[in-house]
């Protein structure tokens, strides 16, 4: 075991896989010599050489398109889009190509590809460094979408993603890179070195894609969260005294409906939280699935707490971010409903 930040855990996952499997290649903008703007690939070029880890031109469609060709050849590229906000030029490659090679060629050509992207806000990144586009991926047949919330999960899920035979979108909540964040932006940061989930095993291990984790057991209401909101939800439960059962989804697609349904049937109430905008967000899918599966156990309407339907603002970051106060209010209202 070693103490790691989420950055170190992600780097370690790539390191482990590059050592085990020569087919794994890593590239993206500033990823090679410098090691990535968030340092997730630092040292990999020195260790594995510049044909296994290298810098790419600033062309996201090119990065993903080239990686699709490499995956079709038989490599397992694990590429970085510098910020999820920059992925839009590559969206056609992801949706029309990566996600469909297997289907349209009846399995002749496949796309074992991981696209890593730092996601989410909380770092004063403004509208081009803060977005949470997960619903744009969960809407696409043929993709898997993963959002880890801590170093232990990040490493195990990333190794599973690299070993997966299909394309995986791996969204890394950048506000969690150096420590858990519960939305109290005015308080000192807790580093991962002081958190249990900063304990990361050495070497190879995987967490299955499609398995959620119950991070707080409770009886009063089920909270469905992922990424940064896992910690916001925990703070909200602690501060309101609501006995919430908090589920970290970890993988949005495939989704662990078993864990979700068992919890909501037990609590009879459900609050869905995410940073992304409300309308047509992944929360809408969750609310719909929960009411389909648990309608007769529900004692209150399903609530959603999300970012507002505006572009991600700069100065108003903490008015936009669905912090513990807003989540706490939703917990209380759902209990009183």
């Amino acid at each position, binding site marked *: 075991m070693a103490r790691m930040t989420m950055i170190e855990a992600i780097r370690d996952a790539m390191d482990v896989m590059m050592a085990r499997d*020569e087919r794994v*290649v890593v590239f993206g903008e500033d990823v090679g010599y410098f090691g990535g703007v968030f340092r997730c690939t630092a040292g990999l070029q020195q260790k594995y050489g510049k*044909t*296994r880890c290298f810098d*790419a*031109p600033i*062309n996201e*469609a*090119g990065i993903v*398109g*080239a*990686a*699709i*060709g*490499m995956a*079709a*050849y*038989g*490599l397992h590229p694990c590429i970085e889009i510098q910020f999820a906000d920059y992925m839009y*030029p590559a969206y*056609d*490659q992801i949706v*029309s*190509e990566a996600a*469909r*090679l*297997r*289907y*349209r*060629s*009846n*399995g*002749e*050509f*496949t796309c074992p590809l991981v696209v890593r992207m730092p996601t989410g806000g909380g770092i004063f990144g403004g509208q081009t460094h803060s977005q949470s586009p997960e619903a744009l991926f969960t809407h696409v*047949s*043929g993709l*898997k979408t993963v959002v880890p919330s801590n170093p232990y999960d990040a490493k195990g899920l990333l190794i599973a993603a690299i070993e997966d*035979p*299909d394309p995986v979108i791996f969204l890394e909540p950048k506000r969690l890179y150096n420590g858990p964040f519960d939305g109290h932006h005015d308080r000192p940061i807790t580093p991962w070195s002081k958190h249990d989930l900063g304990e990361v095993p050495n070497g190879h291990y995987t967490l299955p894609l*499609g398995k959620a984790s119950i991070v707080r057991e409770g009886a009063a209401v089920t909270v469905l969260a992922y990424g940064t909101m896992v910690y916001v939800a925990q703070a909200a439960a602690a501060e309101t005294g609501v006995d919430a059962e908090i589920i970290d989804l970890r993988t949005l*697609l*495939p*989704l662990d*409906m078993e864990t979700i349904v068992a919890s909501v049937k037990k609590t009879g109430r459900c609050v869905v939280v995410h940073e992304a905008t409300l309308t047509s967000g992944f929360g809408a899918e969750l609310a719909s699935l929960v009411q389909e599966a648990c309608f007769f156990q529900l004692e209150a309407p399903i609530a959603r707490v999300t970012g507002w339907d505006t572009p991600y603002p700069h100065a108003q970051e903490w008015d936009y971010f669905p912090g513990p106060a807003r989540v706490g209010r939703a917990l209380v209202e759902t209990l009183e409903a």
Partner: protein
Amino acid sequence: MTTDAPLSLHVPEPAVRPGGTPDFSNVKIPKAGAVPRPNIDVDPESVRDLAFSIIRVLNRNGEAVGPWAGLLSDEELVEGMRHMMTLRTFDARMLIAQRQGKTSFYMQHLGEEAISCAFRRALSPGDMNFPTYRQAGLLIADGYPMVDMMCQIYSNARDPLKGRQLPVMYSSKEHGFFTISGNLATQYIQAVGWAMASAIRNDTKIAAAWIGDGSTAESDFHAALVFASTYKAPVVLNIVNNQWAISTFQGIARGGSGTFAARGLGFGIPSLRVDGNDYLAVYAVAKWAIERARRNLGPTLVEYVTYRAGAHSTSDDPSAYRPKTESDAWPLGDPIIRLKNHLIVRGVWSEERHKQAEAEILDTVIAAQKEAESYGTLHAGGKPSARDMFDGVYAEMPPHLRRQRQQAGV
């Protein structure tokens, strides 16, 4: 007060519209044999003029002349002839089948047969094409079964792609034919990535990217050239300039660059223009470019100058946007007639033998068609099961798709 004259927008127009007299005087055609053949390790800077010329081998008398000639034997040329004739006959039969309602859609190659048929001959087993929808000659010339192609077109019970793809969007890994997307230009950069992977793995295989004149306007084309140039990827970047992107003349995509081949110059990529209706010239240039890739000398851009003699697809009517006689006026002629004349000059072919070959090929294609139709057509006979629709989205079917398949009752 400004004294500047008001600005105005330039929107290019083709030389002629329906009702006018076709005019290709702007297509400057050098004499066959006039363009030199550089060494494959030539400095790209020193061959910039090749992007503005047209490499040609067959002259008006049907003779093969100049430094790009002399690469193919009699037998190989006769085989090439049969490939092109087969593709044309295949197209003719499938067009009729579409009109008969046996499939929803078809795209023919009329006038462009030499390009994919000759290019395939220059590749080696294991190389990978990333084709568009008008390169079926890559399959025909590699011996891919016509019955399988037709089953795909009919989306029938034997469709290798289980009815999931639009007709003509074939896929055959074994024959170096990447699954066709149908989206334009997306696969150009994928070919570069595939080639990069081959180089990363110290393999010997190379890739070939394909695109049309219109689609070079896509951003993915630019991405491909950047990546190919930066990493010196072992890839041949093919542009088939057939003058028309559905109804849009090539000038709309080309802009002020002079030629499509010239797009490669800014990237330091050797860029050649070739007579796309000259089987021998296409083969010679393809061989040159493929050898460069194979020897790790990097990418080559090749523009094939040709003419789309038919409609874009069965959903298109070209008489609405270009003169009906434009095809006849195309100065580079018909690739099959030109090779036929050459074979006759070589003394290995005759009018009689040509007619005989036409009849034999028609019989073969009809036999394949009968067999394919015995497995069903789009609206009659055997077809893929509705259950097939849910398979293959992922390697392993996730729970939500299993639930949906149950709901669908298949």
